[in-house]
């Protein structure tokens, strides 16, 4: 362990940076999704831009995929290491007296989010990749041979939320993401060594952790009820 390039703290800092990056991504994703409620046309335009712009596709997207993989693989590695640090457990322990459930169970909330990401990738990303790079259709049109058919993104989005089971899965996942972020937001600052303004960071983190997932849930339910 001593010869490893990164100390335990170094790994924690990388964990924090990847978490931080994912939170930024979440905000950006939310902004675009909100457009689907406000203006389907704008949503379509931005989706087409994001889906075909080479910088987004070949620079930002790989970084994002790397960050996701890095974050959850490192999360699992750290969790396993931490479990190994105490092979004989306490016969009687009261962790609830000194720490919160969410702070102790980041791996559980994280793994649920990971399972959700699997479904989410299958729902949207795999489909996009198949149409664009598998089928070679970069037009983003409902009917690629008919320029007047309009973009397909908004229609496809709404179609996903017809199924109430899927909506429920989305809602549950976002509740767990919210719990993940309630600890994760402030934790990432602490890991990066920020202790000035700790109380503000905690409060702001809670607002972020509730508001962002809540808006995603709102969008899913909105489309479910609208179709």
């Amino acid at each position, binding site marked *: 362990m001593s010869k490893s390039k990164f100390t*335990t703290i170094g790994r924690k800092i990388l964990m924090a940076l990847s978490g931080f990056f994912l939170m930024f991504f979440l905000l950006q994703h939310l902004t675009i999704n909100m457009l689907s409620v406000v203006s389907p046309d704008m949503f379509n335009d931005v989706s087409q831009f994001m889906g075909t712009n080479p910088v987004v596709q070949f620079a930002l997207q790989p970084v994002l995929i790397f960050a996701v993989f890095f974050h959850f693989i490192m999360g699992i590695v750290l969790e396993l290491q931490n479990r190994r640090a105490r092979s004989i457990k306490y016969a009687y322990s009261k962790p609830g007296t000194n720490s919160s459930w969410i702070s102790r169970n980041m791996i559980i909330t994280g793994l649920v989010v990971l399972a959700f990401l699997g479904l989410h990738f299958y729902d949207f990303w795999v489909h996009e990749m198949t149409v664009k790079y598998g089928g070679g259709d970069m037009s983003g049109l409902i009917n690629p041979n008919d320029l007047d058919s309009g973009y397909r993104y908004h229609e496809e989005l709404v179609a996903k939320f017809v199924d109430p089971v899927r909506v429920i899965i989305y809602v549950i996942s976002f509740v767990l993401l919210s719990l993940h972020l309630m600890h994760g937001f402030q934790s990432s600052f602490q890991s990066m060594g920020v202790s000035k303004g700790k109380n503000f960071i905690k409060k702001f983190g809670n607002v972020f952790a509730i508001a962002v997932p809540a808006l995603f849930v709102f969008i899913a339910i909105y489309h479910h009820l609208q179709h």
Partner: protein
Amino acid sequence: MNLTLKIWRQEDAKSPGKMVTYPISNIEGHMSFLEMMDILNDELIEKGEEPVAFDHDCREGICGMCSMYINGEAHGPDRRVTTCQLHMRMFKDGETIHIEPFRANSFPVLKDLMVDRGAFDRIQQAGGYISVNTSGNTQDANSLPIPKADADLAMDAATCIGCGACVATCKNSSAMLFVSAKVSQYALLPQGRVEAKDRVLNMVNQMDIEGFGNCTNTGACEVECPKGISLDNIARMNRELIKAKA
């Protein structure tokens, strides 16, 4: 009061251990937890049984030797106290008290409730000092101006008694609170800045070699620490590490 004690008994470092139940009576609220353990041990000795081995020294909360995980918490249910300062009035008549050694692979059990905290000594030896000339030419400490706020923070960090409650409490058996207190106490003072980089790198490296877990910022250590060492020290250590690596 009358109590039921469930205590971890383990012959030596190699033997497996188990929880053993002992009833105990006539315990007064003003007794310390260790006095209660003394009474139990007197009774065991009279009966010709092996007394319960546990660590202790000063019995006034300054040496850090006493340990024990009492009713699911390091140093028991009270706050900002060591086990020797824990009063029996914190417990109710008829209560069952679980007593276990501090658990972490880096703190192997030697016997019963005694654990080997030598890992902390080795971390300390890796960098928890400043190199000064003590051959008679020592500079007067007051000749170096130090802002009061920094002096206070350094003093707060220096109150860590190396008891290991932070490790025992942490779900990851992380030693970050201890190491960060030792790093901070020097990082805040001009005398400590000279070797600051090597100190943080060497101490963190030793911490990793000893096999302590990774901090996940649950904050349990800060709550259970008898000296109230703040999580801010961990943030400071992380900053020191980033500076040293950069």
